[in-house]
């Protein structure tokens, strides 16, 4: 209510909400709350099934932790790109914004490509969706995470296109912020997945 600046044109949701927060931002946080339960359920399933390998590959035997570390690093760097993109549009530097948003999307796409490569290697080693409860829970969990990354990339590309067409003026920086919230959330989930799915099982189970 005591917002010092007048509502910016184009942000018609920011008139004066009861809590002084934009509706869109609150909706994104609410949705992220729900997503926590979604990934929580998937990760729980994985933790229950990590030891049920049906004489197929075990975590230590199948994961290529150095390779996944590199793609994890690239995904985490994409969060930095997102932060810089938001800072650029808030400062009104539209060229810089487009550069960073494209860089963020490219880093996300690199991560996805790494995941795709990893999956093809796994498939060649007879480790696929139907091998064991361990493999099923691994592919469904990381697959849904990959789907989230893909949707994020679509949104980033849409913002880049809109900006190129002059349809994403500086006033809409809150849109960038909201998509950024989603992007950071997907990255944070990957940190948990990388730790819980790759690092801990690979360190605690003998190679098989």
């Amino acid at each position, binding site marked *: 209510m005591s917002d010092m600046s007048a509502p910016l044109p184009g942000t018609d949701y920011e008139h004066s909400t009861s*809590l002084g927060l934009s509706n869109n931002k609150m909706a994104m946080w609410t*949705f992220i709350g729900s997503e926590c339960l979604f990934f929580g*359920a998937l990760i729980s*399933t994985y933790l229950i*099934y990590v030891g049920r390998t049906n004489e197929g590959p075990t975590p230590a035997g199948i994961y290529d932790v150095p390779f996944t570390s590199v793609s994890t690093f690239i995904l985490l760097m994409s969060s930095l790109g997102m932060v810089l993109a938001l800072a650029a549009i808030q400062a009104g530097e539209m060229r810089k914004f487009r550069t960073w948003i494209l860089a963020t999307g490219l880093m996300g796409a690199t991560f996805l490509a790494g995941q795709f490569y990893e999956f093809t290697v796994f498939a060649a080693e007879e480790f696929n969706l139907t091998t*064991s409860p361990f493999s*099923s829970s691994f592919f469904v969990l990381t697959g849904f995470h990959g789907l989230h990354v893909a949707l994020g990339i679509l949104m980033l590309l849409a913002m880049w296109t809109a900006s190129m067409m002059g349809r994403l003026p500086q006033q809409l920086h809150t849109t960038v912020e909201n998509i950024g919230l989603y992007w950071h959330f997907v990255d944070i989930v990957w940190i948990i997945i990388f730790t819980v799915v790759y690092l801990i099982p690979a360190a605690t189970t003998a190679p098989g």
Partner: protein
Amino acid sequence: MAVTAQEPVTRRSAFRRPTAETGIWSWITTVDHKRIGILYWLTAFFFFLVGGIEALLIRVQLSRPENTLLSADAYNQLFTMHGLTMIFFALMPLGAAFFNYLLPLQIGARDVAFPRLNAFSYWVFLSAGIFIYSGVLLGGLPDGGWFNYAPLNLIGPDPTATEAAGQIAVAEANHISRMVFYSIGLQIAGIASLASSVNFIVTILNMRAPGMTLMRLPIFTWATFVTSFLMLFAMPVIGVALWQLMFDVRFGTNFFNPAAGGDPVLWQHMFWLFGHPEVYILILPAFGIVSEVLPVFARKPLFGYSAMVFSLIAIAFLGWGVWAHHMFAAGLGPVANAAFGLSTMFIAVPTGVKIFNWLGTLWGGRIRLTTPLLFGVGLVAMFTIGGLSGVTHSIVPSNYQQTDTYYVVAHFHYVMFGGSIFGLFAGTYYWFPKVTGRLLDDRLGKLHFWLMLIGFNVTFGPMHLLGMDGMPRRIYTYADGMGWNFWNLIETIGAFIIAASIAVFIANLAITRRRGEPAGDDPWDARTVEWMTTSPPPHYNFEEVPQISARDELWHRKYVGGATRPPVRVPAGASPDHDPGESAVDDQAQPAHGPGHTGHADIHMPSPSYYPVIAAAGMPIAGWGVYAGGPVQVALLALGGLLILSGLFGWVLEPSAEEHA
């Protein structure tokens, strides 16, 4: 993208904005929360009738022993679809109908925070209903019960029950398709609930009229708020379980298949971690409705408002810690069973708080015996019976005897029908004049109530006895000489009395439509601000957004006194609590009116849109893709995905409201 970049910048979307204000397209493209609420109610009532007919078929089949009206297969589909229909396509959306219609009116807003998301929720819900029932034409309806336990949901038909090998193959294909319709159908319905929960939470937090603090919110709005959080956190859990089931039956994963190392009990945990909050999702809206109805007809404020709010929240929290009481017989061990038995007993405490507060509200009130009040009191009485039989389930040794018998069926019908449906009818009679401008006939309403109360108890009361006598649930017939014949026949008669009561209600609707008594703005002398505006409300809800200065705002505008001396009605407009000049201040959605300005052309309302329907239509198409195989699968998945994505992109790129010329 290169092509679109060449287009003129002024062009905003692929379609001209819909402009129809009447006729079918105005309803298909509407984003008005009131119209969406009406659509929700009508669709859900239709599914309620479908689920009711399924129940009647079940009861006719069980009316005598060794009946051959239905085959075992038909019976399995009917009782499964009865449960799924009533829960996901009747009770939940009936609650959503009230949320949609009333929430903005009760908090003094012009619409919900995201009107198009609201329309999207409705169309997704409808497409889920169409999708799951399309299984009738494609190999049959889901037949594993509403909770669809593993490994029953994986192993399919018993090979010894079918003679020829060809028949087994057909039966197995049918089984897979039925599970696809179950998993994808509920998945789609869950997306609708998730979208509306986000919408309602943001609306309640952010769209309140000036002065409407959280502890001044009408209690029904509180119930909406708490229910939305339950949906927000419960839906993703069942969502994951449904995806896992879909991958199991369609793509050969091993989540719940014990033969391949999977754990069938995991399905039970996931299902009930969603399923128990789900029953509170079904009952809390009815609690909220009754908490609105009783004070109005007792002419007293709600007894213990804060206790009512905090008991709602307590129920919602505890509702997450009781799921395994559905699984006592699954062999979780004495520690888990004792812990969940205790937490189940705890949850009776906030529920009991509500029962006593309703009694406290009625106590000493000047009660008007209208139809809404009767249904409200009916909920309090019937839900208490169901709640008490629920506490008997929490005692583990006793639960071993009751589980999977008709005693459980009796219990959950007392809470779901005696609780939820009585509450929803109370709300229907109470708010019908606000929605239509006409009062439902009170004498027919009372006939409806008494028939329903009698029919309900005749149907479900004897199930306690049959259950104690050991009659199992989910059996399509039973042998003669078990001693179950008499009560089963009585129950079937009771079911037809319920059907008669619904017929009376439909007749009441039809009669009211033609010659109902005009209601006026405030026919019940009500307490909350939705009764301040006209009946039916204009599409912008309020000429001026009301300034809220008290809980039960409207009552304080109508009466002075009350705490220490009898309330005195003040002449219209003379209330000292109400300064009309205040209400224009801090107005959210409209530019300030000039003095003496009475028009509403400058109230800025969101415009109708095609995109929610387009995005929603993609979901069942993609679902049929999962059902189909080969190139059709790819084509349908691609088409569905394309519709969803293009709908969402068109939606994002079009402004929520067209600027006025």
